[in-house]
């Protein structure tokens, strides 16, 4: 009498094809924006991460049907090994980015979703052309995904001599899309990418003929991130079990030193003794309960060294200022890169900048540009920790009165960005990050205050001279009228008094100004 229920298993690619919206491919306009974005981020990751100045071409055109678009993105990156090309594009959950290291993309899903969406809507394969640095050949693959098996289907394959020593990757795809609705999003995205990557050259051609040419402003590149180890506070039991099954044939203390960041020999010994596990036992011998105990305590223990930030790649104060100067053309900009910090074992660095005046339009509250691992966050600002912190700041302390031409830029880079939602557009209110963001903003705000104060003071001195002279004239005229004498007779005498007074006041301010500066340094 059992009710008849059928069960079935889906491959990851089939599952994501059915649930496209979960990866941001909800409708033709969103999908188009997402596709451009995924391809450009892959291009950036393939270049600057390896010390190459990015030179990216993105051509978007209308294709054979009304609502079909062709997207072509080419980079000058390190290229992909011939044998890996089909899997990198044709197998969901296949990636080089599953590492403790800062990447733009991290889910290993982006490029595959582009293909899945394209083949579902236009039934056309994606074309990938790639050559590694120094490769004699250039390889081309036309790929689709066999969604039932989560495997690449190679539709066409070709190779030719690499005459011009080209290296990089070019991707061409035809998919359904809605350019009119996506245009603004795409353009805003490119503009913001340029803000944190002033060393990149990006050329975009849009279907309607518009062209965006982002020129390189500097040859300086940020230092690429290194590949790292997980920090003991950031792991879960499952991850440790995997490490044990892979590398597990050594004493527990050695296992810990070799497999985790922030664990020295002495720390490992102290820790293990404190939780009652013999450091000399082979890790293999621990039973389930002991492993549970070990990991639970690892996450609670507070004596580990901080996670290293070597696998992070901040933009850097100078590049950030250059990028902002170029994209916003402000009167002044002040940026800072904070020291590394961490939350739950994940290292992160906060960078912030304020830009003032120039071509920035005054508005009723600060305009915010947010970035996470150099990726611009365009939506859901109200939920973001940065907006919360910026709103809390009492800007009047920094001599800013709204409406004011003020932009705040915040970049958070981390091996794991804590997004507030799966939409990946807002960063959650993690206390450690909130605190760093606040300190970073305060630091640049203080420098803005010094700048504005100086401007103000110069203006004040001029105004004082003007006021004294104007009002003295009026007073001289009144006294002269009452006493029946000549105005000049009074005024000339008054002018002497004024110039003595002004010299005196300037001398005083010199002294006070020094005091103020010292006080500010004390606060910083």
């Amino acid at each position, binding site marked *: 009498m059992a009710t008849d229920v059928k069960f079935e298993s889906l491959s990851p690619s089939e599952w994501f094809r059915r649930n496209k919206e979960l990866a941001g491919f909800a409708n033709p306009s969103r999908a188009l924006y997402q596709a451009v974005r995924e391809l450009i981020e892959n291009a950036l990751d393939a270049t600057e991460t390896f010390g190459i100045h990015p030179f990216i071409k993105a051509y978007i055109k209308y294709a054979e049907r009304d609502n079909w678009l062709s997207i072509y993105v080419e980079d000058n990156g390190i290229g992909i090994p011939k044998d890996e090309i089909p899997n990198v594009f044709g197998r969901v959950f296949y990636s080089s980015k599953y590492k403790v290291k800062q990447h733009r993309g991290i889910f290993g899903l982006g490029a595959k979703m582009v293909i899945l969406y394209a083949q579902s809507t236009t039934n056309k394969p994606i074309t990938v052309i790639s050559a590694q640095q120094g490769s004699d050949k250039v390889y081309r693959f036309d790929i689709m995904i066999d969604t039932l098996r989560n495997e690449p289907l190679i539709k066409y394959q070709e190779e030719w001599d690499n005459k011009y020593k080209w290296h990089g990757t070019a991707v061409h795809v035809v998919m359904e899309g809605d350019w009119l609705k996506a245009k603004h999003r795409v353009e805003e995205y490119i503009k913001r990418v340029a803000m944190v990557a002033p060393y990149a050259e990006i050329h975009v051609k849009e279907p309607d003929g518009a062209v965006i040419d982002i020129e390189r402003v500097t040859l300086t590149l940020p230092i690429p991130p290194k590949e790292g180890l997980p920090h003991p506070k950031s792991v879960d039991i499952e991850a440790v079990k995997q490490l044990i099954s892979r590398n597990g044939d050594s004493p527990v203390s050695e296992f810990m030193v070799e497999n985790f960041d922030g664990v020295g020999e002495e720390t490992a010994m102290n820790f293990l003794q404190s939780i009652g596990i013999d450091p000399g036992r082979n890790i293999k011998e621990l039973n389930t309960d002991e492993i549970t105990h070990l990991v639970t305590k690892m996450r609670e223990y507070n004596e580990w060294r901080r996670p290293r930030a070597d696998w992070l790649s901040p933009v850097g104060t100078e590049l950030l200022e250059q990028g902002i100067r170029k994209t916003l053309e402000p009167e002044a900009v002040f940026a800072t890169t904070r020291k590394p910090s961490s939350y739950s074992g994940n290292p992160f660095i906060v960078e912030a900048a304020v830009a003032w005046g120039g071509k920035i339009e005054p508005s009723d509250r600060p305009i915010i540009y947010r970035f996470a691992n150099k990726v611009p966050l365009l939506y859901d600002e109200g939920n973001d920790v940065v907006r919360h912190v910026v709103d809390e700041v009492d800007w009047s302390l920094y001599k800013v009165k709204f409406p004011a031409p003020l932009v705040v830029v915040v970049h958070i880079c981390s091996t794991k960005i804590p997004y507030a939602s799966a939409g990946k557009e807002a960063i959650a209110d993690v206390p450690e990050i909130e605190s760093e963001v606040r300190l970073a903003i305060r630091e640049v705000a203080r420098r803005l205050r010094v700048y504005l104060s100086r401007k103000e003071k110069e203006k004040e001195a001029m*105004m004082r001279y003007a006021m004294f002279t*104007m009002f003295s004239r*009026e007073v001289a005229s009144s006294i002269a009228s*009452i006493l029946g004498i000549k105005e000049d007779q009074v005024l000339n005498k*008054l002018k002497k008094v004024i110039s003595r007074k002004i010299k005196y006041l300037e001398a005083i301010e010199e002294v006070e100004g020094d005091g103020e500066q010292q006080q500010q340094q004390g606060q910083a």
Partner: protein
Amino acid sequence: MESSSNSKAKPRSEVLKIMEGLAQELYAQIERGEEPVLEIPSRTLSNTVWDPKRRIVVLGPDKLKRRLLDMKESKRFMQTILMLKLIVSSIREGVYPTIRDLYYNGKHTITFRVPNVGAVRENTWDEQAESNAAIEDLEVGLNVLREEMGLSADVKGKVVGPIVVRSKGFEIDATRMGDTALGLPPNPDELDIVKIEASYVLVVEKDAIFQRLNREGYWNRENAILITARGMPDRATRKFVRRLNEDYKLPVYVLTDSDPYGYYIYSVYKSGSIKLSYESERLATPDAKFIGVTTSDIINYKISSDYVIAANERDIKRAEELVRYPWFQSEAWQKEINLFLKMKKKVEIEALSTHGLKFLHDYLLEKIHSGKWIE
């Protein structure tokens, strides 16, 4: 800016000399190469002192030095001297400008070119509040009232009853006005009081009540002088009431609505306001008595809750200020204001009409003749 402590009215010619003297003094400073400084009694709250003997607030001994060459004070200095010139001119020309006339007469834009900044433009004053402040500075600094300077102002005060005054040679008998009333002049100190035979002065907040009492023969029956200033009294009415009390020792009774605004009106007759304490010495009547309507009258005269109005935020706030005024520290006033703060209820004079349209007379007689006033 020396000031005499004489509080009698000064003729305009004397005022002129005092004002010219200030200009001479400033010029002397400038000739000596000194920065021009005005010394003016400070009108801040901290320099406002309750004089328990005279029962008024007066300015304390603090003086402020206003400098022409101090950014914070420069404009104010200029405004004060400009106003000095304007008033000197009006006295010399024999005109009687209003304070608004002086505002316009003195308002103009002065300009100056500053390198790197451009032309700086500044009005001598923007708001009348600024030119008024300059007038107050001169009044306090020179110890001369604006009335003595000959400035005109709105006068709201009206009088009827047993008093005969002389103005510019004409005698006016306020018992012989019928239903009309005698409108007070801007500077009532210039009135000669020819004859005065009243038993007391009744000051009524509301003009319409004044009209009723006049038509219904109240002052005649009571041999009282009836005065109204339609709400908050102007300076001339206050000066006149003070004179009747001070020079002729007439008791002064004040009738207002029962609400903090009414109490405040009484308070202005009695002692002035803290903010304008420099006027008190000349304008206040510390002897003035309050005959109602009081908050406890609501209970004592059984005024139904239908005629009682709930106090609003502003009433409460004002009462909380009043209860701290030095001249409201008597037991009776403390009781009344605290009762108000407890009940949060107001009532108008006219609400007495709930007991009949003639009840107002009974009420007044009881309050005045049975000593049921408070002060």
